[in-house]
């Protein structure tokens, strides 16, 4: 059974590109447009990995990540942050919030695929 990735971003076109990349790499994909939707999707059932944008309306990526780490059943879930905020402090903040990895937009498609693979132990 293929692994499932949850893609969370409020930019429809970015979601579209990530969806294509993940499916091409053999994963099942679900999507969410903001923090609230992301948490709802997590409660529905647990994916194997989350690709999480930071700047979103209604609960940003930091909050969602924190929520994931504070919920015992979700705490082991690999979270990879994607953000257009490129400064070092923001990267550190993301890691401090409990993200497993941090990718800056715009990203190289190969990099995203590699990072996802690595965190799924493949």
């Amino acid at each position, binding site marked *: 059974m293929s692994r499932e990735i949850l893609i969370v971003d409020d930019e429809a076109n970015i979601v579209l590109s990530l969806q294509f990349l993940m499916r091409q790499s053999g994963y099942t994909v679900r999507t969410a447009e903001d923090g609230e939707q992301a948490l709802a999707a997590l409660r529905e059932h647990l994916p194997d990995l989350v690709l999480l944008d930071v700047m979103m309306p209604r609960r940003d990526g930091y909050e969602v990540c924190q929520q994931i780490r504070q919920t015992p059943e979700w705490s082991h879930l690999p979270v990879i942050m994607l953000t257009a905020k490129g400064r070092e402090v923001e990267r550190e903040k993301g890691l401090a919030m409990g993200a497993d990895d941090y990718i800056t937009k*715009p990203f190289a498609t190969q990099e995203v695929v590699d990072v996802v693979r690595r965190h799924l132990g493949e």
Partner: protein
Amino acid sequence: MLAPWVVVLASSLYVALLFAIAYTADKLGDRGHSLVNNPYVYTLSIAVYCTAWTFYGSVGLATESGLAFLTIYLGPTLMALLWWVVLRKIVRISKLYRLTSVADFIAARYGKSMQLGALAAIIALFGTTPYIALQLQAVSSSFDVLLNFPQTQLDGSGWWLLEDKALYVVVLLALFTILFGTRHIDATERLEGMVVAVAFESIVKLVAFLAIGIFVTFILFSGPFELFRQAAADPRIQELELLTSLPGGYGSWIAMLALSALAILFLPRQWQVSVVENVDEAHIRTASWLFPLYLLVINLFVLPIALAGMIYFGDWVPADTYVLALPLAHDQNALGLLVYIGGFSAATGMAIVATIAVAIMISNDIVVPALLRLRRFSSEQRGDLARLVVTIRRVVICAILALGYLYYLLIADLFALVSIGLIAFVAVAQFAPPVLLGLFWKGACRRGALAGLCGGFLIWLYTLLLPSLAEAGVLGHFGLVLLADGPFGIEWLHPHALFGLGDFDPIAHAFFWSMLVNLSLLIGLSLLRPQQTDIERIQAALFVDVFLRSERDARFWQGSATVGDLQNLLARFLGYERASAIVHEHGEYRGRRLSETEQAHPELVHHIERLLAGSIGAASARVMVSSIVKGEALSYEGVMEILDATSRAIEYSRRLEQKSWQLEKATRELRDANERLKEVDQLKDEFVSMVSHELRTPLTSIRAFGEILLNNPEMDTGQRREFLEVVVRESERLTRLINQVLDLSKIESGSSEWQLEEVDLGRLAREAAEATQQLFTDRNTRLEVVIESEQTAVKGDPDRLMQLVINLLSNASKFTEPDYGEIELRVGDGHGDTVRLAVTDNGPGISAEDQQRIFDKFHQVSDLQAGKPKGSGLGLAICRLITDAHWGRIWVESEPGAGATFSCELPRAGGEHSTLTGFVDFAERNAARLSGSGAAR
């Protein structure tokens, strides 16, 4: 009627209580728990002003001349207003130079003149003796009333008894004054026991007087209204016109006011409690409102008691004894006894303080200087003079009280209480010119002060004392002629009508002439023959400028004396131990032990002179010190040089302070500016970060799809087309964003390159609608343009205004549903003299929260539907900048779910803005906005 033993016992118990209080206060003071360091005790001690005269005499005066009795209390109330200026300066000087009495003060001010000190002491003695007699008379007559009421006329058989009890009182007073008034030789050391006892007496007399007042007003009569009603109905009282007449006329009133205002300061006992016994200058502040209040309260019932007495007794009982007679007539013996004790306390309080005050003057300003002239006491002698000085003071106390007693025996009986008191007031008023002028005018000279005091005093003797002796029959035939026709029948020399000035009452008359003579001599001589000796000029400068100079640096001796000699001199008056302690202390101040043979520093000489002044008076202290200091005292110039060096230092440090204040201010301004810069910097950082985010977002899609297309050449055409469309759309978005950022920065950095011309907003709106036609056609949205007015010309830059309208239109199109969108562009009249342009859509509307922030940069309305192209977040920010620059305003009205209307109003061309030649400057406006927000934070 009370049994004699009851009255005697009550009096004895009261005196014993007074001794106990004074003793306890002294002991507490010795142990460091001072009771007098308290503004309330200070105020109560000043209330020693209210003597037996207040207690019994005010009522007597009120029956004769109505409200005139109040002048004696209004004067001090007026003076209390000036206390902070006058009394505080006197207190400061007296403490600094250890001046122990008003005589010492005058002597020190005018070059430490022995003659002046002695003269002032004599005047004080003359003024005080009758006053003490008055108290004795009050006590003894109140005693008689208490024992003999309702019989009021004394017969000869009471004579031995009368003599006896006044004598007892005198002996008790002498004992008390000696015990608690001469504990220390240093007269500047506070007499705590005495002050506390006097303060206590002030409470007793107040309570007693209020008790009788309340009894009369509320128990004998059913309240003040009833009392006044009955009084108004009484024909005898009507005749007197108590409340409407002004006996003696305005001149008399003014004289009384001035006289009592001076008395509160210059009566020896007032000087003692308010200047010498003052612990803290701050207490003066409290006293200056509390003391007038005390006077008000104690006078509250004077008139009611006077009226009640007249209704009850008429002329049958002397008005001075109404206070006692009223309770006794109603068999209220206990109340009568309380009133008696109250009067007793008023009398004894005055007598004690007055006696000690005058005794210090007599001993320090007359006896000690006289003794120092005798060879036996000159500086070669090594005897202990401290004991001698204390003994002198004790003898003087007894002598003063004996004099008062004698005066009482001889003549006091013949006068009303009030007239004796006023005679004393005029005597001490003579101190006013030399002290008050001396405080504020450096030119007032010794010769003038001496002549003025002499002249004023002689006038007093002639116009008040002599007639009073004549009236008493002491002067025999001469006296009778004097009172009838003037001396030897010379009418214009009549003591109550000098030079024919007969319109005044005797007191006002004497006050007028004595003050006129005193002031004219002082001012006249000071102006006519202004040359002063060095010491006079020095003292004048020190007194007048006391608040300007620092005392530690004042040195007046340039001659030499050894430390040992000075210490010995001090030891003769203060005792060996204290003297060596003082020298040791000074050594510590200099930072080393002083040897007995070394030359004393001028400061030590000055210090020791001041200490001696506290014990033997300023003039004598100077004589003593100059007898062992070899060489001259410094000249006026020398002293002033030292003092000016000090004041230069003070001035310098004041300037330094000012500098440092300015520096501080500059630092603060810099810090604020820096804060503002930081804020601007932070705003810029945020802006850059936002721009970076907004640029990266479309770039991400473009790159991702670019790579996907590159890596998947086999992709089917439909998908490839979809992805390529995304790339194109996002590239457009990127371009738009970059353009807008550039626009924004251009607008913000300045509007100097803009064209300022007349623009027809209606036509501009049509052009904008045409330019954006494609946008609406694509989304199948309906756009309607309504121009309501002919006059739509505004002043501004046509390109910027076009940008404004296009931004609003594209914003509207973005937020309406494709195929269903309806947009209206309306141009018409706005508020006031403006043209309004409004764009209304039927989109999802904007929440109240978003309406607040929608014109901020990069503010995105939060709940957008997915898949819609996003704005840059800069369009509306640019709109606001443009309207701001055009002196206009922009706002949004919206109901969520029911569309939104963006409106802007711009001033009509040709109106008040027609003279403008430039746009609103953004750099300035932003700075103002930032500093405004900075201040609010």
